[in-house]
């Protein structure tokens, strides 16, 4: 019944009116209208928008790397090593004569891919641990938070070293190492939110409907912890990029032939004085990506903050 009101092929004005309707006819319309209002809010923040555009651009450039480049990132032209930017090599070449532009785009796949992998591992884990701990309280809370503290107390690089010793240096070891030390702050944040949320009468009302703790946590508490976790993770992403790059730099992340941004800096750091652009260009990529994620996070905070609206 409600689907009839969806303007399937309607014009833009009709769609806008449908989205901004004060009296939606279906749950779907209400949810879309809510998201659209959030988007309108976000669009008013120029810095946040800039962050979003840069992040999207970086993702598109990395995903479309094979289409946007015409050489292999691993092909070496030793005759043209350390060449400055030119028409043939837009960003110059590295110490083995590999095209830096090509390596930068392919490197984005690895660096940003690591970030995505960490987030996919960390966000659900931190969210669930925090919400369960905060809602149940008591002994469960105490045990879960002590475990969180233990993980929080291990320095990322030391844990990565341990992993490298146990497994082998590589992207997956780096991702696991970063993930293992990145979830505790998120769990703490989600727990703090869950603690305030659980005291509300609307949670008491759901309890009085006879809902099980699992239902209360997953359907009623988690959605309210999500906004601050999303913001936190977006802000953390720059940190994850830097850690991934740092591990690569130390030789514990991506291994040399791979065009990972941090590894690229590490392997060319000796040329910083004579051929400064070679290590600087991946450095700039890291800087821009971190900054963009930070701006995006700040913009999202203004829109998603549950204390507003």
């Amino acid at each position: 019944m409600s689907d009839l009101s969806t303007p399937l092929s309607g014009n833009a004005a009709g769609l806008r009116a449908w989205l901004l309707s004060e009296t939606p006819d279906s749950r779907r319309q209400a949810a879309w209208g809510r998201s659209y209002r959030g988007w309108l809010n976000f669009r008013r923040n120029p810095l946040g928008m800039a962050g979003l555009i840069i992040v999207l651009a970086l993702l598109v450039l990395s995903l479309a790397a094979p289409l946007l480049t015409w050489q292999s990132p691993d092909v070496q032209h030793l005759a043209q090593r350390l060449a400055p930017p030119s028409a043939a090599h837009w960003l110059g070449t590295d110490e083995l004569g590999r095209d830096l532009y090509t390596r930068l785009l392919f490197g984005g796949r690895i660096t940003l891919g690591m970030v995505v992998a960490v987030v996919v591992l960390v966000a659900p884990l931190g969210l669930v641990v925090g919400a369960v701990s905060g809602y149940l309280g008591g002994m469960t809370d105490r045990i879960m938070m002590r475990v969180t503290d233990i993980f929080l107390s291990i320095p990322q690089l030391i844990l990565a070293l341990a992993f490298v010793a146990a497994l082998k240096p590589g992207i997956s070891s780096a991702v696991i190492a970063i993930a293992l030390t990145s979830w505790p702050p998120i769990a703490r944040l989600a727990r703090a939110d869950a603690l305030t949320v659980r005291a509300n009468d609307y949670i008491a009302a759901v309890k009085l409907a006879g809902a099980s703790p699992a239902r209360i946590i997953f359907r009623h508490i988690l959605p309210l912890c999500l906004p601050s976790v999303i913001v936190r993770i977006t802000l953390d992403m720059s940190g994850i990029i830097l850690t991934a790059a740092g591990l690569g730099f130390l030789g514990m992340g991506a291994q040399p032939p791979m065009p990972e941004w941090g590894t690229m800096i590490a392997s060319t750091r000796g040329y910083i004085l004579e051929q400064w652009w070679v290590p600087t260009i991946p450095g700039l990529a890291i800087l821009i990506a971190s900054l963009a994620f930070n701006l995006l996070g700040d913009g999202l905070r203004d829109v998603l903050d549950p204390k507003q609206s």
Partner: protein
Amino acid sequence: MAAPMIAIDGLRVRFGAREVVHGVSFSVARGASFGMVGESGSGKSTILRAFAGLAPDWSGAMALDGQALGRRRARDFFRRCQMVFQDPYGSLHPRQTIDRQLAEPLQIQAMDGIDARIRRALEEVGLPASARFRYPHQLSGGQRQRVAIARALITGPEVLLLDEPTSALDVSVQAEVLNLLADLQAARGLTYLMVTHNLAVVAHLCPWIGVMQGGEMVEQLSAADLRAGRVAHPHTAELRALSTELEEAG
């Protein structure tokens, strides 16, 4: 004689080390209304929460329709007994549509005809159908309290626990909500257990009243006696005097 709908005997409730209700006993017959008045901290809301199962650390005896209540409430209890909270801004989930909040108890209780029940519930509390897919922040305080009442009634309970249901509302809206509660009781034969600090409100809705002070029920009297000033306990007299002082001035 049938068992009373609500029976509370020697109820004591503790929060941590502190006992806030010191042995309260009363009962409410089926279809009747009982009101508890008292100042903040007198323990009146705590009794309500303990009966609903929201204050776990209690001793004494409580029974719903002759069935003794234990530590844990069975799912069936929540079908028979529901609660309306004081603050309509805090008792509705801020990120869920009215529709979803009304559907939740029905899904938990595995009831059928959810769509029709929601439409009927909104109509019963006097809300337009257009309110169904709105979020709480798009409704006024009075409308929110109607939603909270609709949510409490949607599974067809016999007992409604009312925790200061009108004290966060404007007086004109308070009148509408009190009338609604009176109508619903007449239509469904509901049993009300109400808590408020307002003597005029409690006397309007409840023919039988318990006065709370410092965790004890110091007096039980009829609304007629309260109105006429036939009170036994000094605290009741004090509360009554404060209430009538303003009325007489007006």
